[in-house]
């Protein structure tokens, strides 16, 4: 395939990925590894051991100042006043009509300091949206720190053991969706967050984005995880992992034409907050009886793979919706998908048909997430 890297953006680890002969792809304008050592091997490494991802392409917006909480509350649908220092939560920025600007993770660094981690493909749009929406509010400064960090995600049941070798911070004290700062690979004040996008336990670390530091830490993580069978992982496995875990991807399950209730994310929208962008639209949707279509999980029951964008039909031949994300599931060994269908078709075990290259292939509605990590017996 022809190389077209001249216009694509690169993370600090780009040369490292290319030297390791990773298969590269254009993801939202970024030259990223899609496959480092085989998608299925990488996926299974994360489910059974540990894998490491370069997710530096994601963005980081800091809101700082005495007015930062009020700004976050206006901007994002979840209730950031419930966060303690060192705690994070899943949230979203909405348009006034209740559809998505982006989904985000909000981190409370201090009473006057919030970090919002945003998607790679929506970096510029999000920063402009934030400045436009709350830039006028008193006592808040908006800083785009996206290029400041190399962000690594270390994910899997052995992720904690792997990262523990590289830090003096006792990782067992960091609960799920909490974070702290510590020394990692000799670097000071590295943010260590117990967050991720795989459905496994894991951590995301934020280190300085210069190439030598990034390459050194990447190498040390791979060395630390070697005894557990760590693999460097690309965006291909990242997608199959998050799909099995039922996690949304912007541009697929959530977008500017999909509202919060359609996407089954109502539990993250705190309507008892007095105000946030999109709140009134959500109340109106509720008052009108809720969404008319909803996101469901599908499992193919006849032979075939339903993929992104494939149409969904009722069994009597009416087109009723579309798959937003669909793929073989490497861990479950089934073909799974997320799709929007009318609410009448959302009951579990409802049978539908997916059109695959002209053929109608049967699927059924199944619960989401498709995969849940096993509970640890402590």
């Amino acid at each position, binding site marked *: 395939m022809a190389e077209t890297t001249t216009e694509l953006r690169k993370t600090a680890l780009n040369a490292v990925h290319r030297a390791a002969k990773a298969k590269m792809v254009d993801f939202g304008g970024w030259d990223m590894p899609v496959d480092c050592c085989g998608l299925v091997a990488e996926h299974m490494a994360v489910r059974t051991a540990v894998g490491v991802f370069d997710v530096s392409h994601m963005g980081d917006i800091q809101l700082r100042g005495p007015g930062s909480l009020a700004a976050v509350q206006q901007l994002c649908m979840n209730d950031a006043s419930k966060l303690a220092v060192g705690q994070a939560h899943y949230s979203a920025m909405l348009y006034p009509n209740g559809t998505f600007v982006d989904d985000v993770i909000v981190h409370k660094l201090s009473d006057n300091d919030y970090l919002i981690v945003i998607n790679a493909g929506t970096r510029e749009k999000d920063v402009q949206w934030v400045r436009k929406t709350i830039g006028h509010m008193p006592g808040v400064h908006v800083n785009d720190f996206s290029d400041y960090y190399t962000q690594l995600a270390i994910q899997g049941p052995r992720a904690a053991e792997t990262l523990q070798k590289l830090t003096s911070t006792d990782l067992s004290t960091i609960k799920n969706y909490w974070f702290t700062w510590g020394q990692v690979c000799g670097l000071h004040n590295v943010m260590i967050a117990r967050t991720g996008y795989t459905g496994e336990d894991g951590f995301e670390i934020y280190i300085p984005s210069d190439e030598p530091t990034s390459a050194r830490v990447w190498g040390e993580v791979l060395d630390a995880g070697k005894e557990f069978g760590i693999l460097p992982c690309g965006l291909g496995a990242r997608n199959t992992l998050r799909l099995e875990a039922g996690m949304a991807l912007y541009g697929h399950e959530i977008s500017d034409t999909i509202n919060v209730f359609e996407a089954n994310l109502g539990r993250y929208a705190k309507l008892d907050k007095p105000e946030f962008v999109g709140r009134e639209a959500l109340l109106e949707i509720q008052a009108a009886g809720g969404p008319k279509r909803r996101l469901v999980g599908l499992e193919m029951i006849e032979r075939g793979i339903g993929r992104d964008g494939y149409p969904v039909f009722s069994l009597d031949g009416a087109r009723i919706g579309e798959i937003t994300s669909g793929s073989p599931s*490497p861990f479950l060994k089934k073909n799974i998908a997320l799709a929007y269908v009318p609410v009448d078709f959302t009951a579990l075990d409802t049978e539908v048909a997916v059109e695959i290259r002209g053929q109608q292939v049967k699927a059924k509605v199944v619960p989401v997430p498709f995969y849940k990590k096993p509970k640890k017996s402590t």
Partner: protein
Amino acid sequence: MAYPADYRYTKEHEWIQVDGRIGTVGITDYAQNSLGDIVFVDLPKVGDTVEAKQSFGSVESVKAVSDLFAPVTGTVTEINEELKDAPEKINSDANTTWLLKLELADAAQVDALLSAAEYEKFISEETGH
């Protein structure tokens, strides 16, 4: 990776090994490597006719779908049933894992296909190395 000298090749990365009037068809090592882990193969039925250069089925990896194009026109005499449950065999050995066998309509069509050397040149140009 060697491409067997007695096979002929298409620019869509299929190979055909001809023995009299029967041709055995597969995909090349280059194709399996580009696709990644193959999880699904969609083949015609025994007795179906396939037309040269037309799609006769598909090969799917986790990430992608790739059409299969017939190197020559013919009638399907056999399909590799193993690929229904073990499609990953193609990844392990693309050169010997066959997809189907055809009775050739016109043996002369094979002459228009690429030799192993021509195919290797073609892929090195395509990938730039």
